[in-house]
């Protein structure tokens, strides 16, 4: 079972690589590469600031609002790893996106299914464009707060000094 899973994962990663390399699919999955570069650059800075000889584990959280494809992000991270953290384990966790209306106080969850492809794509690239495409389900106001689930952030970096 485990072997099968590994095989499928390898096949999937190979497919991702081909897509990324050949540029057959533009857009949605490509943005993950830019975010992965930012994560690698940031981890590198943290390792340097903290005097880490080796990075062992990096915990990353990804907000649901940005609709990041986790597999592609993980693949990009594995391709971009530097020598100092080539053995590091990167774990990526998705955080549900929750919104709250500033006008009436209504709280609700983001749902990609209610968006057309263009709107979802816009939010993927610049999550703040959500204010152009989503309104409070209770009062219709576009003045709402993203309580959680926006963007990509590093929760922790563990390493050896």
């Amino acid at each position: 079972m485990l072997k099968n899973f590994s095989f499928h994962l390898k096949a999937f990663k190979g497919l991702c690589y081909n897509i990324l390399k050949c540029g057959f699919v533009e857009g949605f999955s490509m943005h993950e590469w830019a975010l992965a570069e930012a994560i690698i650059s940031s981890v590198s800075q943290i390792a340097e600031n903290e005097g880490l000889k080796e990075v062992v584990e990096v915990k990353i959280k990804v907000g649901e609002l940005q609709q990041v494809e986790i597999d592609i992000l993980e693949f990009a991270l594995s391709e971009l790893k530097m020598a100092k953290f080539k053995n590091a384990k990167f774990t990526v966790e998705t955080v549900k996106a929750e919104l709250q209306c500033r006008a009436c106080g209504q709280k609700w969850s983001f749902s990609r299914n209610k968006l057309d492809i263009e709107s979802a794509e816009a939010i993927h690239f610049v999550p703040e464009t959500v204010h152009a495409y989503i309104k409070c389900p209770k009062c219709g106001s576009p003045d709402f707060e993203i309580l959680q689930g926006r963007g990509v952030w590093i929760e922790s970096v563990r390493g050896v000094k």
Partner: protein
Amino acid sequence: MLDPREAIIDKRLEKVKNVIAVSSGKGGVGKSLFASTLALTLARKNFKVGLFDLDFTSPSTHLILGLKDAKPKEEKGIIPAHVHGLKYVSIVAYSKEKPLPLRGADVSNAIIELLATTIWGDLDFLIIDMPPGISDATLDLIRLVKGIKFLVVTTPSPLAFETVKKLLGLLRELKVPVVGVVENMKIRKDAFVSRNVADAGFSSLGDLPFDPKVEETLGNVDALLETDFAKKLAEIVSKIPFNPT
């Protein structure tokens, strides 16, 4: 918890020789027109130029440039659209013609997102059309973009200049280089702005005439570059000591 995006911004801009923020203390002084014409003028002189419309809630450079669909491509990041010899990014590509009401924190997040993911590549000039005032966008760019310089636009109005004085004061306090101040929409000879700019210790770059024909050229860049406004702007630009390209 750490936002990783800021760590990559230097790398994204490492091949940009001059980052020029076209800014003012208030709206309506012609920043977007100035920024667009400046970018086009430099591009016509065969410089490699980018134009970044940072006025997220009221973008207008796409109208000046006559762009209906200037969507960036995506390839390991955002690849600016190529228009009229410029690399071009505006949030309009994503928000379309819909209103995009953003509060300060949202503006900051969108700025960081676009700075972190846009691949500008090799540029002599990146011209940034700023929103008016000294709030989030101005503070974020000063914080995030190393080597940024401000080019400040005002009108002859004491009201406009009063807000510009505050912008100049902030830039001085934060030790941000100012290329100089341009006086736009000049109707009659008057030394009010140039005198006050000199008194404040900044350079006056010159004045641009109020040219009613400019409005008729919106969307037609060739016609825009033939206006007295654009010709005078080209004269001013030729005297500015930018970084070597």
